[in-house]
């Protein structure tokens, strides 16, 4: 045990957890990393490529090494950073990327083979033979190299999403962020303060300098208490702002219950979309290390992280309490860690400072002008080699802190392509001046990391932001602090002929960067891809700037000349589940239900998805053992008696106004202006490029009142198109339109007995053929006063009507029709029978109007009026379309019981089947009980002149070939007598 005194942990609440099956104790307030360190556990994982033993390197979300898998089964969460995992009772964690026990990973052989795996090995090694790639190389590499594994089971956790708006979003709750939030909060602005940590305070929690006369955490608690008391301030701990989007929109993930034992009820994470008028970027800074030989052993950490573990979590970084800790630094900051360690009673070996004039701040040994040149201890640090004045000395050490300076967290300021700017004085990249509009960097994120400077900077940023919003924010009293800015001298890496790691997660060493340089992969973008530097879960947060500095040294260029990477969202990994925000599975796209859905369900209907709708597919009866049996019966009932089908899903657009007729004349390819009141006309809409867009009926209820119907699939698109035509092309036309698809329940009543049935519900309305002929329409009342619309139109080819009533009466109407029609043999039918009926009749549907077809191909070329302009008319007459000789035909397989699959290609019989000899394709196919054979529709080259010809329909995907006779597309009642009776 290496637990120290003090710290911000609750010793009255012990928690037990397991790592690789072994049980340990921690306390509330611990992270998994701090609890492991307090238990003397240094080794927590294996590296990506060489399978080197690795330990905890940082104390935050920048962690490259300490990746574990939490939980197990479907809830297992790979690649979780132990450093930000809040400990809870019963937490189970396992290490990743090894075969056999963590201590004796069989794949550690890779480390001996390291020369094979130099930069670019992927590109060089697996070139030949090509056939080996998929079958041999890739599976092997994937197995050997990689991090945690997914469970591949559906995620059982619950997720949510939400939207927030504010005047000021403060990103980061450290010194600068807390002051910014308080400054703006006291001024009355609506403020959101978000921090990825579970406790506000940022680095203040990791430091020991007094604020006025109190501990930093006491000031933080007081400040948070005031912020929490302000109704205009929302505090969001455990919330990572991961991306900056346009116009002040930010993406954030709140880990709502990741710090609790998994549960089926609690929301695990929430995706927030935050729209902020202004923002303060107070994201702090990440410490960088100094690469030296064998610098990747467990026990070697960032010096600032050691300070955090000692001060906040009372955890020493060593395996044993009396192991000494050494510090390697290029500036004053490393000395602070030595002082804090001494203050906690941890033995300090000394501070190895690269500066010859290194200062001394306390009672510890300083190796001035010295470097660390080697380490020992395979599973945990045992000794370090210090080189000073040309002499190398081995000294025993249980841990080593490395302090190479601080990199401001500029990521969110660079998500809009703004390039960070190098500041030679601070030895750091600062947020770009052309960063996102309305974002004010402050504190360590702006290079102003000394506590007192950060306080003042946070207040300044909030005041500037609020001034832009026309608000005034007064100064708030800031605590007095003693710490000073970090004095440091540039020192980027300790030269060695052996391996010195720059990027721990991807096993990229200084040698790899040198090799990339030698092989001319010098631009940072090439460097990244050649070496894999800065990739994977940590995106090089502790590596990129050091790598840049090494590359700069090799090329003799300055760091800003060498470049920087472009940062992209997300700042840290975001689970795909939370991006779904709970809208997964059935919730991804809610179904729309028809007015008769509940009724159809009660009848035992099977349903199918049609666009966003659920529609009844067919209505099986007792004794029917196959869906075809049901569908055949439904089809025959319609042709013999009468059938009912809910057709509410077809789009309905109400078009009204003095210019409605003229408007529709320009929308439809055929003439609509001449349509008489009380009549319906079939209409074709073209796209402006001359191809078919949609078809449907257009009913004229009054001189200035039309009802346009669309296909189910295009209901939205046609409405959008109509509004475009009106608002953007012809705003001078006095016409208005609205979608009424949901307002009316519409039921098709089809079959020879449909008139007889309808006569029983209409209120004194003459349905005779003379009074209400084919293609008539009327507004009327039914069932004793219910307003309704009746259209005598037919999709099935039979005598048929569609009746519309207000949507809430749809259920009652179908029940009434079923009751009143029982003696007539009325039968409900679904989309399958609907399709069979229209294919038998040769009516076009979505498969025939697939965006590549024309009116002419449908055999309706003459409908495109040449006497008037309409959308698509001009382009429909261009040579390529006008001369298209493919026509819609019917196909009868010579073998009646074999179905020609839709999509099959048509060929002249006996001809070699090539692209050049292709004669068309099959669009729709079904079994026709009317014909007693399978039938199909298709587009065939010169089809109208080939009736009677026997052709081949081929489905080369399945090696199928069919012989079929070309017939008219209208297999039922080609003269249309039944419709008109």
């Amino acid at each position: 045990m290496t637990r120290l005194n003090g710290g911000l942990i609750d010793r009255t609440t012990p928690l037990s957890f397991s790592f690789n099956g072994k049980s340990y104790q921690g306390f509330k307030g611990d992270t998994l990393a701090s609890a492991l360190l307090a238990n003397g556990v240094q080794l927590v994982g294996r590296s990506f490529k060489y399978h080197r033993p690795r330990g905890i390197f940082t104390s935050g979300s920048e962690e490259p090494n300490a990746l574990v898998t939490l939980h197990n089964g479907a809830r297992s969460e790979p690649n979780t950073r132990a450093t930000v995992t809040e400990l809870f009772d019963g937490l189970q964690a396992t290490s990743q990327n090894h075969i056999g026990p963590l201590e004796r990973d069989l794949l550690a052989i890779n480390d001996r083979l390291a020369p094979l795996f130099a930069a670019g090995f992927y590109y060089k090694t697996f070139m030949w033979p090509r056939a080996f790639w998929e079958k041999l190389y890739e599976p092997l590499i994937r197995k050997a190299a990689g991090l945690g594994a997914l469970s591949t089971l559906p995620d059982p956790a619950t997720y949510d999403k939400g939207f927030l708006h504010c005047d000021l979003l403060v990103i980061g709750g450290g010194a600068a962020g807390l002051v910014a939030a308080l400054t703006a909060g006291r001024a009355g602005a609506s403020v959101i303060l978000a921090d990825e940590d579970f406790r506000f305070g940022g680095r203040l929690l990791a430091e020991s300098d007094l604020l006025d006369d109190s501990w930093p955490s006491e000031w933080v608690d007081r400040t948070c208490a005031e912020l929490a008391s302000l109704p205009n301030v929302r505090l969001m701990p455990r919330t990572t702002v991961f991306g900056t989007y346009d116009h002040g929109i930010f993406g954030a993930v709140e880990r709502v219950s990741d710090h609790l034992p998994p549960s089926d009820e609690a929301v695990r994470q929430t995706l927030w979309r935050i729209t902020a008028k202004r923002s303060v970027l107070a994201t702090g800074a990440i410490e960088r290390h100094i690469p030296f030989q064998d610098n990747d052993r467990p026990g070697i950490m960032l010096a600032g992280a050691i300070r955090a573990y000692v001060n906040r979590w009372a955890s020493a970084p060593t395996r044993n309490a009396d192991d000494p800790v050494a510090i390697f630094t290029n500036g004053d900051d490393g000395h602070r860690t030595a002082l804090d360690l001494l203050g906690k009673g941890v033995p300090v070996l000394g501070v190895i400072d690269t500066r010859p004039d290194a200062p001394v701040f306390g009672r510890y040994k300083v190796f001035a002008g010295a470097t660390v040149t080697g380490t020992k201890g395979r599973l945990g640090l045992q000794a370090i080699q210090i080189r000073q004045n040309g002499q190398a000395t081995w000294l025993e050490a249980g841990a080593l802190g490395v302090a190479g300076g601080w990199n401001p967290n500029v990521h969110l300021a660079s998500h809009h392509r703004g390039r960070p700017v190098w500041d030679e004085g601070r030895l750091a990249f600062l947020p770009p001046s052309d960063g996102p509009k309305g974002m004010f960097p402050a504190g360590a994120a702006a290079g102003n990391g000394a506590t007192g400077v950060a306080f003042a900077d946070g207040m300044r940023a909030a005041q500037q932001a609020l001034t832009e919003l026309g608000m005034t924010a007064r100064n708030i009293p800031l605590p007095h602090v003693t710490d000073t800015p970090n004095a440091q001298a540039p020192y980027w890496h300790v030269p060695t002929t052996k391996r010195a790691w720059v990027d721990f997660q991807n096993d990229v060493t200084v040698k790899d960067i040198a090799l990339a340089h030698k092989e001319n992969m010098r631009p940072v973008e090439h460097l990244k891809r050649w070496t894999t530097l800065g990739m994977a879960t940590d995106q090089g947060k502790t590596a990129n700037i050091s790598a840049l500095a090494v590359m700069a040294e090799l090329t003799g260029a300055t760091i800003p000349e060498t470049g920087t990477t472009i940062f992209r969202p997300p700042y840290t990994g975001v689970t795909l589940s939370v991006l779904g925000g709970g809208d997964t599975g059935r919730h991804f796209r809610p179904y729309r239900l028809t007015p008769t859905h509940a009724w159809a369900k009660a009848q035992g209907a099977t349903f199918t998805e049609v666009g966003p709708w659920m529609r009844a597919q067919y209505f099986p009866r007792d004794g029917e053992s196959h869906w075809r049996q049901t569908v055949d019966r439904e089809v025959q009932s319609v042709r013999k008696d009468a059938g009912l089908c809910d057709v509410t899903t077809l789009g309905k657009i109400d078009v009204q106004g003095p210019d409605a007729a003229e408007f529709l004349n320009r929308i439809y390819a055929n003439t609509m202006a001449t349509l008489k009141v009380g009549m319906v006309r079939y209409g074709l809409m073209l796209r402006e490029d001359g191809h078919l867009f949609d078809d449907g009926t257009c009913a004229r209820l009054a001189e200035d009142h039309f009802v346009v119907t669309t296909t189910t699939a295009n209901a939205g698109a046609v409405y959008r198109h109509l509004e475009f035509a009106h608002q953007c092309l012809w705003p001078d036309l006095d016409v208005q339109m609205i979608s009424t698809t949901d307002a009316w329940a519409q039921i098709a009543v089809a079959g020879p007995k449909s008139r007889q049935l309808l006569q029983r519900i209409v209120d004194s309305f003459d349905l005779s053929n003379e009074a209400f002929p084919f293609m008539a329409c009327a507004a009327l009342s039914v069932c004793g006063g219910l307003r309704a619309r009746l259209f005598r139109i037919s999709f099935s080819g039979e005598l048929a009507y569609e009746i519309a009533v207000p949507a809430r009466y749809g259920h009652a109407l179908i029940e009434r029709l079923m009751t009143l029609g029982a003696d007539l043999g009325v039968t409900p039918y679904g989309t399958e029978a609907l399709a069979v009926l229209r294919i038998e009749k040769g009516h076009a549907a979505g498969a025939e109007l697939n965006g590549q077809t024309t009116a002419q191909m449908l055999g309706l070329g003459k409908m495109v009026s040449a006497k008037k302009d309409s959308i698509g008319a001009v382009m429909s007459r261009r040579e390529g379309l006008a001369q298209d000789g493919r026509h819609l035909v019917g196909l009868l397989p010579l073998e009646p019981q074999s179905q020609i699959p839709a999509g099959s290609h048509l060929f002249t019989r006996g001809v070699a089947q090539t692209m050049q000899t292709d004669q068309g394709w099959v669009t729709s196919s079904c079994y026709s009980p009317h014909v007693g054979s399978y039938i199909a529709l298709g587009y065939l080259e010169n089809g109208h002149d080939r009736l009677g010809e026997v052709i081949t329909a081929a489905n080369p995907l399945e090696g199928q070939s069919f012989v079929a006779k070309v017939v008219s597309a209208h297999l039922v009642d080609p003269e249309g007598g039944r419709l008109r009776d």
Partner: protein
Amino acid sequence: MLIPHPLLGLRDSQEFTYLGDASLMNRPDPASPSAEAEFCDYVFLRDNPAGVHRELWFHEQGDRSWLVVTRNTLTHEILGAELARTLPVRGAE
């Protein structure tokens, strides 16, 4: 993105459907002797500028206005939004 709707103020771009270049409002005269060539340009040929672009957005989840939004395609800065129906068009009469 936030789109400044002339009637409704700042609205989230998620409420809108995007169509494209506002030149789609300039439908050629179908009676022109070179109508086919003009329609061909109108339908198929568009500028794709890196910079300021006038484009059509439909407030589908809102008031169903078609807007002409002037947007810098490089920075996503929105310089203005107008109701399409209030703008002069070259419609066929």
